[in-house]
């Protein structure tokens, strides 16, 4: 769906993070957590491609979408200059989205801006009565976004920062393992985003603790809808001669079983 949206709010967080709140009722109604949009919040100029952003919060009742974004290059810089009332163009909702279990506990492991799509998963899971455990890391405390909101939807939010301020900078996978082993919490599904190392760290734990781990991938995108074949990742695919194939992050993902991704 290619539609216009209106900016409701441009909220500056600490560090390079911003939250953009967009009024777009149709997408807000249709979207599921783990999905994303292709956004264009600038006039053509020298920027040719729209940019993919996860849905940080989906508020169908208000007809709103929240985007948590980090200023990285020229498109996100332009984005940060938009003010309430201005129009943006969106394509979405896109991607497969996250499949939540019917019941049970889920864990979310995010690094840095990788927390963005996890928020929508946390909120949806919480609303469906699942119990959510959230683990977030970054270089330093102020680079972990949305802790207050995560706390609202999670039974527990565990932080770790490389500078040692939080949890001595220990690995989130280790902290998850402690939750499972020390506190005896059973986890059914894990979603992770923002760090290859995190996703790989989950692999040996899957069978050990009997959970399914999913990773939300990112790849540079042109179309976002599956037509350009630009955004591929390598995925184990039985039945192909090589045993793997390229899958499109935008259409076959962005959520993949962690064990199927070939890094």
């Amino acid at each position, binding site marked *: 769906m*290619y539609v216009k949206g209106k900016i409701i709010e441009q909220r500056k967080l600490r560090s390079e993070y911003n939250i953009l709140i967009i009024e777009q009722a149709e997408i807000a109604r249709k979207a599921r957590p783990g999905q994303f949009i292709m956004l264009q919040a600038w006039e053509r100029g020298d920027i040719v*491609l729209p940019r993919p952003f996860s849905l940080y919060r989906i508020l169908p009742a208000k007809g709103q979408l929240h985007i948590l974004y980090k200023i990285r290059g020229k498109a996100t810089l332009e984005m940060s200059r938009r003010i309430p009332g201005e129009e943006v163009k969106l394509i979405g909702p896109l991607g497969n989205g996250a499949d939540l279990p019917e019941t049970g506990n889920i864990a979310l492991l995010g690094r840095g801006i990788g927390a963005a799509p996890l928020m929508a998963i946390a909120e949806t899971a919480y609303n469906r009565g699942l119990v959510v455990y959230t683990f977030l890391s970054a270089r330093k405390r102020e680079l972990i976004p949305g802790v207050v909101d995560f706390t609202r939807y999670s039974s527990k939010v565990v932080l770790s920062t490389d500078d040692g301020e939080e949890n001595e900078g220990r690995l989130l996978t280790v902290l998850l393992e402690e939750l499972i082993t020390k506190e005896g919490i059973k986890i059914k599904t894990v979603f992770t985003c923002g760090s290859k190392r995190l996703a790989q760290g989950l692999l040996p734990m899957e069978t050990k603790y009997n959970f399914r781990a999913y990773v939300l991938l990112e790849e540079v995108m042109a179309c976002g809808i599956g037509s350009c*074949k630009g955004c591929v990742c390598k995925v184990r695919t039985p039945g192909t001669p090589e045993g793997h194939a390229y899958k499109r992050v935008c259409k076959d993902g962005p959520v993949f079983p962690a064990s199927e991704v070939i890094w």
Partner: protein
Amino acid sequence: MKDLDLTSELVPGLKLKNPVMPASGTYDYGDGANAFNPSLLGAIVTKSVSAFPRSGNAPPRIHETPCGILNAVGIPSEGVEAFRRNTLPGLKQYNTALIVSVAGETPEDFAQVISCLEEENGIGAYELNFSCPNLGDGIPFGTNPELLYLAVKQIRKVASRPLIVKLSPNVVDIKLMARQAQDAGADILTVANTLTGMAIDVRRRQPVLGNIFGGLSGPAIKPVALRMVWEVAGAVDIPVIGVGGITDTTDALEFIMAGARAIQVGTANFANPKVMLEIIEGIESYMEENGFTRLADIVGLARR
């Protein structure tokens, strides 16, 4: 408005309802993601199909450059058999001309794909993608005049339908390539594919694209593509389809006034999935406001 004639009869039997179609590999048909009904297009053009399944290049495959993008997708294809089975039936449902783009590394590859497709009905023409810079290592025959001639001639033999040869812009003399294609039996020319380029990630100190090189498309290349359309339209008698950087109605009119009898839109679809519809309407408005009734009246207008 009802007296406007936007049709473009490229060759007898291939009459487009309007001159606007997608560039191969840049547009998706009919899975609900479409911003408008593809039947409104002058034609639909498939992603290039190869004889056997191909997986394409290692990522990253896309990189944005000033007013352009580099793509090193590398023609992944399900292969012609799967294409016939899974993809073609869906495409035939649209009420517009269907152009199947064909890719390969040798003339035999092309002939094989086409032979296989000859058994199908509902295909309007084949577009031969001779110009992909992402395939193989050697100089592709799309950039050698003699090899181009021989390839078209060989493929011509197996194809009963109109043959569109899509030329590479990475050549010295596009007029020569165009004449070679015409002489060997091409019915229509598409001008042009992407320019070969690359980018380096200074932070990581290595090429950005998995394949190192990629094809440059988008507004950045428009002046080059337009020049080639102008040159080719003056050098051959067969129709020319213009492509390269077209992003709005004015761009499309530039190509048409240079002599293109139809145009393709590629990169611009990504940011604006409705752009082709806007261009069709824009051409209509232009003709109306300027007192033209037939598309043919503005084809080559800047050459007169």
